[in-house]
């Protein structure tokens, strides 16, 4: 796949890729060996490093430990806002039913109103946190609930014990919650209201500046992963299920819970746009950033121009060129 | 040697022996000890290091159970330490978290005496050991000699039937030692206590004891007993030093020869 074979001496020995344990195009690409044909076969070792969330991935980017990182778009905003030298090159998936606000059976919570006075758990700084805050704000009860900062595994534990009746979380823990609960709202519905959240891919600019072709190849891997899924969902689900230690059925269900983009869709006006005309996703990111700023989560909300520059579709375009 | 009229028998020890069973084979520390202590006796025990002096004292104190023989106090078996037998150790083992007075009041307090009596007793013995001025001092600011005086007063305050002392003056310098000997001698004369004292200083034993026991090691047993009266007669009362005469020197030489073998 790499055209400049003559300059192989300049290629890095290894690339470090931070990923999340979620069933997405990256996971398909990883488990089906698609990276091998673009990287390993060129003598480049791919190191895959699991992160629990974008939080730790951002730290790893800051210290230069990884070159690529997958994270929720809120963490992408944090990266930009805190001055990390990175750019956004891909949208893995637009979050839909994969995330949602679960309420426990028998808690008599059927509407936003009922949430008043409740404890709601969610991992702070996540896309779920963002969606939850907006949901509460829409309902006008943001000051009437107690938010608890918990990691997903702790949410399940607290849920099982009955400490909490509501939590905004994502798969696979969301599935655990829904075993004895129901979904009050999903990120899909929130996205329809304009609060779009997505898992995105960031790359260190130092890396992308040096090896733009490799970045394009990286996107090829991801889009091939997406293609594989679209071609044969069962096969992809079976592949990722093993790594995620869930059943293929569950995997497929979770995969269907979000929207996977093709490169062409990603370059569309609704999402990243092209190098010449920024897409709508930049606006969404800016809105999200403004919201996070009002929450004092970030100190400065970068300008629209900064987001336009941050979201860089050039590598997608490159990946489509040949 | 004098012909003295003996007091009542307080302690009777017969064929007493102690084996220590450590991790290895048992050690026979003392063996075949026979001893009768009368009221008013001032017994000094001499003997080479490791001959079992402390072991014997521990049995009498009730800290250790003999493995053979009998030990009766006032005709009864002893089951453990109690206030009838007060003990003064070489290191004073006073309680550093208590003042001088509190240390002395400890015994009477344990006996649940009325508060008034406790204070009175403590004051009395503080006076006897010349420490009334220092009653509120903390222990660790006292000199070695003062500490031993507190330890002495602490035991005296309990008015035990027998006072047991294990090299009480061993850690003091020569001069303080002579002053302490004088103090003990004066107290003994005044209160008519019964004292069983271990020492390694022959001069000390000779100048204090009414009875001097000499022990030998392996097996640790009493090989000689002397009845003396230097404590009553041959003392230069101004300095508290024993007036040395021919008889004294001969006795001392004899004892040294006895130990030094």
């Amino acid at each position, binding site marked *: 796949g790499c055209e400049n074979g003559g300059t192989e001496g300049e290629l890095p020995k290894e690339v470090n890729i931070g990923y999340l344990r979620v069933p997405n195009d990256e996971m398909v690409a990883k488990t089906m060996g698609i990276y091998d044909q673009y990287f390993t076969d060129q003598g480049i070792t791919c190191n895959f490093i699991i992160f629990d969330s974008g939080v730790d991935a951002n730290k790893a980017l800051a210290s230069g430990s990884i070159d690529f990182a997958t994270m929720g778009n809120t963490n992408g905003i944090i990266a930009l806002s805190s001055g990390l030298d990175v750019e956004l090159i891909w949208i893995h998936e637009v979050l839909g039913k994969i995330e949602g606000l679960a309420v426990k059976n028998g808690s008599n919570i059927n509407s936003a109103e009922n949430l008043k006075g409740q404890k709601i758990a969610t991992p702070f700084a996540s896309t779920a946190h963002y969606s939850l805050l907006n949901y509460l704000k829409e309902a006008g009860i943001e000051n009437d609930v107690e938010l608890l900062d918990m990691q997903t595994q702790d949410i399940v*534990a607290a849920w099982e014990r009955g400490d909490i009746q509501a939590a905004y979380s994502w798969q696979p823990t969301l599935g655990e919650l829904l075993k004895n609960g129901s979904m009050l709202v999903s990120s899909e519905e929130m996205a329809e209201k304009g609060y779009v959240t997505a898992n995105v891919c960031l790359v260190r600019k130092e890396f992308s500046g040096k090896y733009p072709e490799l970045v394009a190849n990286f996107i090829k891997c991801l889009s091939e992963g997406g293609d594989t899924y679209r071609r044969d969902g069962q096969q992809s689900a079976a592949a990722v299920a093993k790594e995620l230690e869930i059943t293929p059925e569950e995997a497929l269900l979770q995969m269907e819970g979000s929207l996977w983009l093709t490169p062409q869709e990603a370059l569309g006006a609704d999402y990243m746009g092209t190098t010449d005309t920024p897409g709508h996703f930049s606006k969404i990111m800016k809105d999200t950033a403004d919201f996070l700023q009002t929450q004092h989560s970030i100190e400065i909300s970068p300008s629209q121009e900064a987001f336009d520059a941050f979201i860089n579709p050039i590598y997608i375009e490159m990946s489509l060129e040949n | 040697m004098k012909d003295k009229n003996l007091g009542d028998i307080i302690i009777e020890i017969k064929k007493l022996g102690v084996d220590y069973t450590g991790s290895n084979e048992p050690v026979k520390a003392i063996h075949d000890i026979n001893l009768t202590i009368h009221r008013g006796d001032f017994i000094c025990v001499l003997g080479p290091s490791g001959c079992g002096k402390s072991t014997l004292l521990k049995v009498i104190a009730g800290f250790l159970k003999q493995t053979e023989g009998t030990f009766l106090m006032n005709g009864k078996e002893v089951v453990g330490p109690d206030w009838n037998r007060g*003990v003064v150790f070489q290191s004073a083992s006073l309680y550093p*978290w208590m003042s001088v007075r509190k240390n002395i009041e400890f015994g009477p307090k344990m006996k649940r005496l009325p508060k008034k009596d406790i204070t009175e007793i403590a004051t009395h013995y503080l006076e006897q050991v010349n420490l009334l001025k220092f009653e509120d001092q903390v222990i660790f600011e006292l000199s070695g000699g003062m500490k031993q005086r507190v330890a002495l007063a602490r035991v005296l305050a309990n008015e035990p039937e027998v006072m047991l002392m294990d090299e009480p003056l061993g850690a003091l310098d020569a001069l303080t030692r002579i002053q302490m000997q004088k103090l003990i001698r004066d107290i003994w004369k005044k209160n008519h206590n019964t004292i069983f004292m271990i020492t390694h200083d022959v001069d000390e034993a000779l100048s204090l004891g009414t009875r001097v026991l000499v022990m030998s090691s392996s097996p640790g047993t009493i090989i000689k007993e002397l009845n003396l009266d230097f404590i009553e007669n041959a003392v230069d009362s101004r300095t508290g030093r024993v007036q040395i005469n021919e008889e004294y020197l001969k006795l001392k030489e004899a004892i040294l020869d006895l130990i030094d073998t």
Partner: protein
Amino acid sequence: MQNKKKNSSTNRLLTIGTWLAILIVWFTITKLGLVSPLVVPSPGAVFQTFLSILENGYNGRSLWAHLGISFYRLFVASLLAIVTAIPLGLLSGYFEKVRAIVDSIVQFYRPLPPLAYYVVLILWLGIDESSKITLLYLAAFAPIYVACVSAVTNINQDYILSAKSLGANERDVFFNVVFPASLPDIFTSIRTAIGMAYTTLVSAEMVAASSGIGWMVIDASRYLKSSVIFVGIIIMGITGVLIDLGLRALENKIVYWKGYQ
């Protein structure tokens, strides 16, 4: 000899110099942009952040509220540890049978990383204060317990023996001798224990908290607010040192006889 005073002031200058040097290096590398402000924020930025947190609080809570809730957790946990570990430790030290029962359990959990069993605690106790305080409690319990056991087993046996000879019964010995004699070691261990609990604070506040100085650092690290992280660390460092100084002062006051046993 005469140079002692001069020496100690040179040393103070050296210490101040060291910190000044650290500050200058810090200032210079951030000023010259040698490292990204994300990795090392400038002293000015950290100070600004400190002032802003002082004024506006963090996450809707004042800095004092954050400190307050952390210290509340620390205080309750330490207090619980003190009132349970001391009696249990002393009993374990004094009665071999108690020790046989309790000791191996403590020895087993002691080396465990708190985070390993925190999950279990959350499953058992929920996400409220109780699990946080229990985590800190367990961290603080072991050092005090272990120190009590060793204090009692290393106690000067003469203290106990002389108490018994002065008429004290087992109960008297325990409260009047064993307890005070162990106090200096207990105090040292309380300092260790509070240090251990303090060290565990961030772990405890990592789960299901939205307050506390430890949570502040964790939360700031989520949003990559380096200057807040630095503020948090500096505050924790200083309060940690202050707590220890306070405890040390208390120690000198209460167990003034320490080192004189």
